[in-house]
């Protein structure tokens, strides 16, 4: 099942770009490690689904997109949000439930939103985002906008009827959407081979006469290259695409999960393929990363995480009188509506 470790050459890799990729993966990792800590401290509540181990997918993919493209995500979306440029402080404040959170504290960990970044949210219903992505892409097509809608979802989401209906609709109408499956081999505690009869997920694209392919989800450059190429293909009007990123989650499904369903050895084996460590090692080997720079990276990332926590701590609570706010849009004179 494990994708092979492909030591992609680093031909014309620009240092700044490489370091940016590395830094972002590191930021997400440290941000989430801190989140887990804050969860046990009772600062964050509800569900917390960590992305640790999967960072390369978000970082590689987001770097291949433009500011106009749209993202539809899942409940395991801190990494997606941060890689997309949502401020870590706004994400952390959201998880605190503060009103300086990116969803004004209404959503928490599973519902990060940032319309300016065209980040259309975390969604806590597995596969619930796929139809939305189809609709966003339809709007783009109808309005003649050359945008790509990227829809993230897990291997478990592939089981749902919404996967089937959405892929068919997108292919039938040749919509500009990239279905990006993060196959981490588990849907909660159920291994892929125990929830899908056909475990080669990308091959399912054929059932929709759609193009599909798999990519090593632990290799940020491979992902960036794939999404780059595919996004261009989609932008050229060739219709949707299914990309399966083969990855792995190092942590429990959520903070409640006792992980009875997999062995330590399996997790350890995948940790050998850590997207951050391996990429850093490759950069070092290529002379693109010196020890001093790595240290500086760590320091600046730590500082950014600390700032995020400080912003969350300092943020105000939404006043109780706002309980019913934003259930509806307040009507404005032009009938378009606006927020309270």
């Amino acid at each position, binding site marked *: 099942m494990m994708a092979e470790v492909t030591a992609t050459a680093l031909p014309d890799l620009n240092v700044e770009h490489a370091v940016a990729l590395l830094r972002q993966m590191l930021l997400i990792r440290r941000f989430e490690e801190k989140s887990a800590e804050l969860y046990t401290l009772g600062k964050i509540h509800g569900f917390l689904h960590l992305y640790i181990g999967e960072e390369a997918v978000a970082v590689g993919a987001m770097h291949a997109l433009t500011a106009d493209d749209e993202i539809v995500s899942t409940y395991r979306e801190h990494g997606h949000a941060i890689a997309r440029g949502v401020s870590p402080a706004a994400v952390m404040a959201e998880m605190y439930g503060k009103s300086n959170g990116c969803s004004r504290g209404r959503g928490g960990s599973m519902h990060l939103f940032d319309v300016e970044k065209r980040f259309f*949210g975390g969604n806590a219903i597995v596969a*619930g985002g*796929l139809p*939305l992505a189809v609709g*966003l892409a339809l709007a783009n097509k109808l309005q003649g906008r050359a945008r790509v809608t990227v829809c993230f979802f897990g291997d478990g989401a592939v089981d749902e009827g919404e996967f089937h209906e959405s892929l068919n609709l997108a292919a039938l109408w040749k919509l500009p959407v990239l279905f990006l499956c993060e196959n981490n081999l588990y849907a909660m505690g159920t291994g892929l081979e125990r929830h899908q009869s056909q475990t080669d997920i990308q091959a399912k694209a054929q059932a929709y006469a759609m193009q599909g392919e798999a990519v090593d989800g632990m290799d940020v450059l491979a992902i960036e290259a794939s999404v780059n190429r595919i996004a261009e293909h989609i932008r050229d009007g060739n219709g949707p695409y299914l990309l399966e990123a083969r990855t792995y989650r190092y942590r429990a499904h959520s903070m409640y999960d006792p992980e009875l369903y997999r062995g330590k050895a399996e997790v350890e084996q995948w940790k050998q393929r850590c997207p951050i460590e391996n990429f850093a090692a490759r950069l070092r080997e290529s002379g693109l990363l010196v020890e001093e720079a790595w240290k500086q990276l760590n320091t600046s990332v730590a500082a950014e995480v600390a700032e995020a926590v400080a912003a969350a701590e300092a943020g105000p609570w939404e006043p109780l009188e706002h309980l019913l706010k*934003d259930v509806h849009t307040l009507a404005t004179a032009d009938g378009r509506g606006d927020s309270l």
Partner: protein
Amino acid sequence: MTATMTYREAVRSGLREALRSDARVFLMGEDVGRYGGAFACSRGLLDEFGPERIRDTPLSESAFVGAGIGAALGGMRPIVEVMTVNFSLLALDQIVNNAATLRHMSGGQMSVPVVVRMATGGGRQLAAQHSHSLEGWYAHVPGLTVLAPATNQDARDMLLAALTEPDPVIIFEHAMLYPQEGEVDEKSLPLDIRHAAVRRAGSDVTLITYGGSLGKTLAAAEELSGLGIEAEVLDLRALRPLDSQAILTSVTKTRRAVIIDEGWRTGSLAAEVSAQIMEGAFYELDAPVARVCSAEVPIPYPKHLEDAALPQVASIVETARQLCEKSA
């Protein structure tokens, strides 16, 4: 400036006007295009507006309703036709968990201006899986606006009004109404969709209803008049938000109420109306509020059993009569 047309033509008139006046509007759903719509509401529109704006969808209720929500996020003004409320259960997750929540969950960053239309109700001998009246469920969900046009004018105007709403609107068209003839002013101004309408004034009892039951209720009011009982008939029009003020005003005047609702009795929208009267007009009542709803049975196919299962003029008359007699 009115014209005589059927309810289905009134819907079509609204659709056509919306499509002509706003390039962001499009219609999608199963068989809305080539087939002309399961209830023929969209017949002819494919020719006028083309397949990009009159989109036939696969049988994928969850995906195409969700796509309507997504397209609304993307700046369009989609009208999604779900053939009937029976099939809308397949799309309920998208409506409840996405359309109704996205604005709130995102802290007000986005609105979802989607309009979902569907046929509802029984009476056509379509049996247990095709005769549901589940609009009461939608009326339970914060974030949604739920409309039930009972007149031909409302069939047109409510659609146009719904399209000016920034948030999701669900419109229930009772399937028995489509052939109903009536006068429609096609130049009417966008109307207020949040108010109930007194369709008949009366002093002895208020008959509260909506949608497909309005006709039966008005007929019952006529019969009651023959019995010396003058009923006021209140058409709710909007099922969410309920026009509680109009309900209480009328009931305070007549001191008696009967609610007529094609939903199954237990857990019906009628129960909510009754509870609101309890809370807001208890001391004005001369008699307990009564309900005429559907029997607690999956709607059976044969006409005599279906008729017995649904509210009818006779049962409305009988309930109102007894209520007035007992509390005379």
